[in-house]
């Protein structure tokens, strides 16, 4: 068992803000990925005692930046008024890009290379591009290369309307490039492996919606900063949450990944959304210099690799080593956030920890790790209700975990990552 331990300077999670998550509705949404991050970042920086130019760097996770803002971290820094001198960069670890940005910020703070870092994630999945197919690109290159009229004519003869069928960038992004399964199919694998029924998944999904609505009513989403369109339209809240979500209704939906036999539907999967979540990280010196009152401290983090065809178990593989390093059990923590990519995937994580064989074969344990108390897990709902703007989700669950914890409380945020990875962070509320 590799046991990287955190040593050196403490890393503070000072404050954070996120946009409402806006559900993609079959058309490009009103905000680009950088627009979303700018609105969250402006609100977050506005309430700080320092100026944007005082930041040491800006790190942004983004799984699908548009072609004109590939280094979207730098775009964000400049658009926030950080000035020319504050570096900005972009990280990409699929669904954990936002968590990776936090981890990268923490590393630089721990190494003494930075004191004050804005980090998080953003994605505007509704604006994922439609691409020309490879066949169409080949045809176009022939067409542009044709000079003589005869060549042009020959090229035209080779044209077929079918060449125009676009490749949907989003589906490409959500398909594993090595094993060729899309993310939904990896979740089907888990449902099959752990015998999770469709009804159980739908019940889990309905609960996610109900928990989110109850939390909203209780004012538990203080980290949300509303979005304002240039037209003056306000988006105050996550717009994919449904009050009318019931297991019965969800039961009527058709499977979308393994048609027609599968168990995973749009209803028991996370929603395709646009959103951004940002946190401010600081060293001890920066906390003192600016008189900051941090929300909490980043205690530990871990990244793990596993079979890409079972990527949904990533949280199990990433969180377990942290528990071991700190010699704590699943329920010794006060709160858990496991990103709900799919109901089946979260349920499979719980099942894996309860499964003696799985724990022995994959985690090197003597027996099952235990049963995670569901009253500690995703108590304000998850990505099935709130949405999953891929690059932002890792930062969102860390931020929301901090908001859930009471002073002195400790909690874990963990996320599964397409490609067969898991990420987890242990935080402590101050």
């Amino acid at each position, binding site marked *: 068992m590799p046991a990287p331990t955190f040593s050196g300077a403490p890393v503070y999670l000072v404050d954070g803000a996120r946009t409402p998550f806006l559900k993609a509705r079959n058309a490009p949404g009103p905000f680009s990925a950088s627009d979303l991050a700018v609105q969250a970042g402006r609100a977050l920086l*506005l309430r700080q005692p320092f100026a944007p130019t005082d930041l040491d760097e800006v790190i942004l996770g983004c799984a699908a930046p548009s072609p004109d803002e590939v280094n979207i971290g730098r775009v964000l820094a400049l658009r926030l*008024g950080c000035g020319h001198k504050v570096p900005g960069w972009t990280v990409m670890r699929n669904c954990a890009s936002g968590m990776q940005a936090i981890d990268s910020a923490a590393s630089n703070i721990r190494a003494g290379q930075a004191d004050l870092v804005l980090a998080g994630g953003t994605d505007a999945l509704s604006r994922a591009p439609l691409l020309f197919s490879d066949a169409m690109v080949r045809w176009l290159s022939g067409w542009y290369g044709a000079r003589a009229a005869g060549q042009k004519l020959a090229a035209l003869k080779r044209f077929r309307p079918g060449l125009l069928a676009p490749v949907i960038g989003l589906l490409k992004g959500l398909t594993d490039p090595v094993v060729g399964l899309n993310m939904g199919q990896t979740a089907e694998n888990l449902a099959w492996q752990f015998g999770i029924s469709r009804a159980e998944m739908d019940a889990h999904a309905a609960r996610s919606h109900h928990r989110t609505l109850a939390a909203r009513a209780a004012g538990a989403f203080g980290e949300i900063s509303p979005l304002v369109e240039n037209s*003056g339209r306000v988006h105050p809240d996550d717009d994919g949450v449904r009050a009318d979500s019931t297991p019965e209704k969800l039961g009527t939906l058709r499977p979308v990944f393994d048609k027609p036999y599968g168990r995973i539907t749009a209803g028991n999967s996370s929603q395709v959304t646009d959103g951004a979540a940002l946190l401010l990280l600081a060293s001890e010196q920066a906390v003192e210099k600016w008189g900051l009152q941090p929300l909490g401290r980043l205690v530990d983090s871990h990244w793990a690799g596993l079979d890409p065809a079972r990527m949904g178990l990533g949280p199990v593989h990433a969180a377990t080593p942290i528990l071991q390093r700190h010699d704590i059990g699943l329920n010794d923590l006060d709160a858990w956030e496991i990103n709900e990519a799919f109901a089946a995937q979260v349920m499979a994580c719980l099942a894996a920890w309860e499964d003696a064989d799985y724990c022995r074969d994959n985690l090197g344990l003597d027996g099952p790790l235990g049963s995670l108390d569901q009253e500690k897990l995703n108590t304000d709902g998850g990505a099935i209700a709130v949405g999953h703007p891929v690059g932002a989700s890792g930062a969102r669950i860390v931020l929301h975990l901090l908001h859930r914890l009471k002073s002195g409380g400790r909690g874990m945020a963990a996320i599964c990552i397409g490609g067969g990875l898991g990420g987890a962070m242990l935080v402590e509320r101050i």
Partner: protein
Amino acid sequence: MKLKHWKLDRDADGLAWATLDKADAAANTLSSAVTDELAQLLDHLEQEPPKGLVFRSGKAAGFIAGADIEEFSSLDSAEGTRALVARGWDLFNRLAGVAYPTLALIRGHCLGGGLELSLACRYRIVVDEPGTKLGLPEVMLGIVPGWGGMKRLPERIAAPAALDMMLSGRTMDARKAKRLGLADDCVPPRVMDAAARGLVLSGRPARRQPLLERLLNGPLRFVVAAQARKQVAAKARPEHYPAPYAIIDLWHKHGGNALAAPDVLDRIVRSPTARNLVRIFFLQERLKAFGKKSALAARRVHVVGAGIMGGDIAAWCALRGLTVTLQDQSLERVAAAIGRAAPLFERRIRDPLARRAAFDRLIPDPEGHGAAHADVVIEAIFEDLEAKRGLLAALEQRMRPEAVLATNTSSLRLEDLATALASPGRLVGIHFFNPVAKMPLVEVVEPDGADPAMLARTHAFVRTIDKLPLPVRSAPGFLVNAVLAPYLLEAMRCVDEGIAPATIDAAMEAFGMPMGPIELADTVGLDIALAAGRQLAGATEPPRCLAERVERKELGRKSGRGFYAYQDGRTVKAAAGSIPDGLAQRLVTPLIDRAQALVDAGIVADGDLADAGVIFGTGFAPFTGGPLHYRKTRADQQPQ
């Protein structure tokens, strides 16, 4: 050859670079010393003609700002006028006739005589920067572009566009200059020298106008002139503004040569209108200079109150490059203000990235965090003494000590607000006019005991956002509203006496006002006019016509009906009747009386500033030189 203002360099290729860097001046103007040296320079080049000649500026500020306004404003004879026009006309004709190719490399403003010099060159290259502006603004000073502009601009671009440019005085940017054919190319600064060298040595003939444009400047000239006369007539009366009519005539009948019609020229240049417009130009410079007393370069502004005024002030500041936090009780109100900013940004910022940056700078701040970071905080909430006092006291505690704290109140006493503060001396008034984007004036109000450093910073801030600051002392209505109130009330009393509103407005439009008093009252809002009238005109009874309409909730433009009806933003007016004798004088008299009284009371420092304030704050007929100047010149003309 010894030159003070020009520098002539010849490079190895035989190319000559003439750089204008006028001595002891921030900007290049074509004073007689500068044009005399240009003549010498041409003499010198005649001895040993270069392969090409490039004109450029040695100033960071721009290319050439125009003629020297002091020189022509001091003209006192027809002969002097003729000589001044001939100086530039002959010189630029000579430049246009040299055998070697010539080019103007235009970076920054290129106005009036500067553009006329450029037009006399074979080629023009404009540098693609926001500061590059080309124009012939002579008409705004009541004169004509007599140094070849009227002849050569219509030879470069289509005559209707050329006339529009000369008649409006509007400038165009580099890209439009290229698009219309005024410039041969539009290039980024990094290649401007290479582009100038390449073009001037290219041997290419001067750009020839397309056939249609040649027809418009030739046989079809009469059609274009007739059309232009019609357009000008809709905007300005010849007795008030003779210059635009003269421009059309000089182009149409004399090929743009003002020397061919010396009587017209002298009448224009020495007309009261030209003198008054030049006077206003200098008054404007005087207002601008108020901003120089403090080095504050404000970067962040916090505005509280996202209503029409507060929201529009915030949008304007963001447009001018400042970072603005906008606070109100609900995000929805702030968002609505952002929605109102959208068409302004859309109109004023062409570049989509620059427009996005303006939106990024306009930050909703419902919790008011921005006050702590701001260089200037502006309070623009509803007019309630206690609400404002509470807000100002709270703001003071959170603000940086050197930041300006300003109120946009128009009806409350600043002294009553200031006492809410721990340091009452820091409060100043900053009174914008509606619509903010259109009105150039901002009254900077000095309450008793105000800190002079704060006032100086406020003036500097007003300049930073490109408005004209007018210092006034705290008094009801300050200057602008105080002079408007008795004028509007008098107009409404005329309605009570049975004169039709349209007739009253027609009388004042004939006087030269941009909008008649009745329509102005409708625009301001009749409820506001009633309240202001009560406050600013003492205990007198409000006009019956006003009270009745307010009673009926006919509040003017905003309610769709006041003295007039409003449909789809248009005023529905009956035809004006015949205007009774002396009506305009009757209406304008209370305005002038009040302006004089305010000068006498020291509310505004002198008559010139009062004139500037009333012109830039109300649009008061500019050709008159302002209300007090108007009264003085009338008294001079009518011996008692």
